[in-house]
């Protein structure tokens, strides 16, 4: 058996480095989350959709969305009919969406929600349904609404967010000092889940599957300073209640925004925002 080529690349890349910005640093237009409340509904029931997009340059954002049902008769969940008459469209970053009715018995049917966000302009659709942004920046995101006749999922609940071990309120934002270059002034940030946030669910399968706990992950984003990582999860699959990262303040005074996106690995997503005044 010859060695996979990946090894050669890995050896050659021992000395490689990239100057790409880390995924946790919000430096340009980003869609950080699309939340559904609730994330899984019965046919005919309404869910509330919210698009969390941010532009550090402060340009006005325009959002267009389309909810696409799956192609009838297909077993491939990624095959959606966004050009069909059943597709629902809108222009808002927060809206209510009613789950369509599907004939016949089914366990779970996915509906794809496709979102386009344009900074500093409007979104138009061409004859083929392709989106065009008249502004300078455009991002797309997808989200899946699960329509279920039986078991339902809920969004993970967050009890509180701690900064340096103390409660981090939404308002007023706390203040921390600036951190000189090469300084060691790390601030632990902890996201604590609420009781029952980690639900048990059936893994599925022909024999009904086994009941297992959700794997919850928190994704951290910020506009300033340095985070030691982009996400914290629960690799052991044990039931733990918090996820922590260390953040280093910038060297200059600034207002720094944070976003915490908590997902349960099966469609449940909760998003929180916090702000810090650094050296102000």
């Amino acid at each position, binding site marked *: 058996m010859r*060695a996979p080529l990946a090894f050669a690349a890995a050896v050659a890349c021992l000395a490689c480095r990239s100057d790409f910005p880390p995924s946790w640093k919000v430096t340009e237009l980003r869609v950080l989350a699309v939340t559904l409340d609730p994330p899984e509904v019965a046919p005919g029931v309404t869910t509330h959709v919210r698009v969390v997009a941010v532009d550090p340059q402060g340009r006005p954002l325009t959002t267009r969305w389309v909810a696409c049902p799956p192609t009838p008769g297909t077993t491939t969940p990624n095959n959606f009919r966004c050009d069909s008459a059943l597709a629902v469209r809108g222009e808002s970053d927060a809206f209510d969406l009613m789950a369509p009715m599907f004939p016949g018995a089914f366990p779970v049917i996915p509906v794809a929600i496709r979102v386009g966000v344009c900074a500093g302009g409007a979104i138009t659709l061409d004859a083929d349904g392709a989106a065009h942004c008249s502004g300078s920046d455009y991002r797309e995101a997808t989200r899946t609404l699960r329509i279920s006749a039986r078991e339902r999922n809920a969004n993970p609940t967050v009890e509180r967010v701690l900064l340096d071990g103390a409660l981090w309120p939404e308002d007023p934002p706390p203040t921390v000092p600036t951190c000189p270059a090469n300084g060691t002034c790390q601030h632990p940030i902890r996201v604590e889940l609420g009781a029952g946030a980690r639900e048990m669910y059936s893994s599925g399968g022909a024999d009904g599957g086994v009941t297992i706990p959700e794997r919850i992950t928190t994704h951290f984003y910020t506009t300033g300073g340095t985070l030691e990582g982009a996400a914290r999860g629960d690799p052991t699959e044990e039931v733990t209640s918090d996820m922590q990262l260390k953040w280093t303040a910038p060297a200059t005074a600034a207002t720094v925004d944070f976003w915490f996106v908590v997902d349960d690995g099966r469609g449940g997503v909760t998003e929180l925002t916090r702000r810090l005044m650094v050296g102000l």
Partner: protein
Amino acid sequence: MVLAGSGASAQTVRRTEVAPAEPEAGEVTVRARRPPRETTLITLDRREIQRIPGTGGDAFRAIQNLPGLARAPTLTGLLIVRGSAPQDTQVFLDGVDIPLLYHFGGLTSVVSSDLLERLDFYPGNFSARYGRAQGGIIDAGMRTPTRRRWGGNANLNLIDGSFLLEGPLARNLTLVFAARRSWVDAVLGAALAGNTNVAVVAAPVYYDYQTILSWRPSPRDDLRAFFFGSDDTLRLLFTRQGDSAPTGLSIGQHFDRLQLRWRHRASERLSTELSVTPGYTDNARSSRDLRFSTQAFTVSSRFNLAWQFARTARLNAGLDLQSGPVDIGYQGPSPQRTPGNRASTIIDFTTRIDIFRPAVFAELELQAAPWLRLVPSLRMDYFGELRSGTISPRVTFRAEMRRGWFLRGGVGVFTQPPQFQESLSANDVREPGVPVGNPNLMAQRVISYDLGVEHAFSPVITASVEGFYKAFDSQVVRPLGTAFGVATLPYVNDGIGRAYGLEVMLRHRPTARFFGWVSYTLMRSERRQEPADPWLLFQFDQTHILTVIGNYRLGRGWELGLRFRLVSGNPYTARLGSTFNADTSSFVPIIGPVNGARLPTFHQLDLRVDKTWQLGRGVSLDLYIDVQNVYNHSNVEGVSYSFDSRQIAYTNGLPILPSLGVRTDF
């Protein structure tokens, strides 16, 4: 270029020949004994091999400058022959297949070039003696140790050191021992000791050894034991406190072989050769996302017979058997994942395969007319793991159309078993019931055609032009577009392909002052996932491959050599952007056409300067500096993308790289 005389058949072979400096009187050379087959014979002499810039005097690296071989990405050591995949080319040492040709992807080869008698490179239409390969063949012949006196050489450079000792032990009993060991770990360790700014240092550590014990009990018999092996390890020298090793990378690759060979010349017309080679191979590699290991105890056995049964006809026939157990463990991405297919990308298995691959072959060399030689041949292989076999007919010809002008060509069938993991019946441990491979796979097949012409303009200036076409079928691929994106069969034989091109070589053989050549290949290699799919570029397709080499003796022991290469960039699959998947807070790349983009053109100039002193009778000292990438061009070897695929960065190859060395022969 030397054109083989009588006894040559019609395959194409590019030979890097390192004939012993002191042929012994009365000794029948190995070259004369083995069945001559080649029509195109490029004989690189010792001076050429040792002086080509950028090769470090390594014969195996020297052949990379010949037509038919594409440029391998830096530090990969891949052998990409006429548009075939790297795993389609086999490497042999005196008929024994070896799992590794270069230490750490091309730093240096695993065999001392000073031990080679010949180095044959068959880019296509090779002899029926060789099989289980649909690309090319590299076969190195080891020389007999000298019987005259004890002597040898030593070679030191910044990367490794090596030595060779040889001489007579008794009448008709000779021994040679050669070994090499890298010392990058020692150099780096000493240089960086106490440097707290360096987080992690890992160094390639390798060694190899070769021992040949040769005994000639009679003029008709030649007995030889050839014991050789190699070891590559990536050694972590140290890590700064608090830092972890990069991606948990570890590499260990080791093999040992013991070849026992008996050559017997029954008469002037009949000779035989029997060899048995037990061997051990141990590979263990891991990174953050990959774990791969093999341990193999295999025996390779060969029997060759050469019978000149008529004045114009000669039969070469034989048996070829590979057998033994191979233990394989793998956890990681599927090795043949198709670009753009993200389904079922992780496999995990541990299993044992009992290899049993017998083969028989026969080749008839017919001098049909004084100017025409025909070589029909047949090879039959059986692959135990597939429970099936193949029949491979081949025919080649060589004709002297007019004095000094030769026309040659051939057509043949070449088969190769799938890689082990592709035909495994073992199950994925993560998903019991899901097979890792497809045990019903067939051997892959190539039908190869080539036609060429050669001409000698003078005793030192020669030229050749050769066209080739290869049709691939029954190629192993991963199926696409099955239910829920998961393949019901992990591998199928649906792939086809084609490779075609033209190879040109203009050469000035070594004279007192100068040697050099210009080699140019124009080619295209394409694949189809299924016969109805569109053609896609092969991942190592290189449209233009130009190599220019020149060496000039300036006098007073000074010598200057240059090598320039200009090669099309490899294709790659570009990302056109990404969509944020808000279900998982991850970015899904938007994949462009498969292999629809191409890396920038590669070009590089290498330079070598030698100064030699003759210190006495048979003793010389050579001090050299070999500079790769003289003008420090940033050659692109790959691309990487930011987390959202919106930014692209190039991965560059080696910067300017000077290497200083000293060699003494005694």
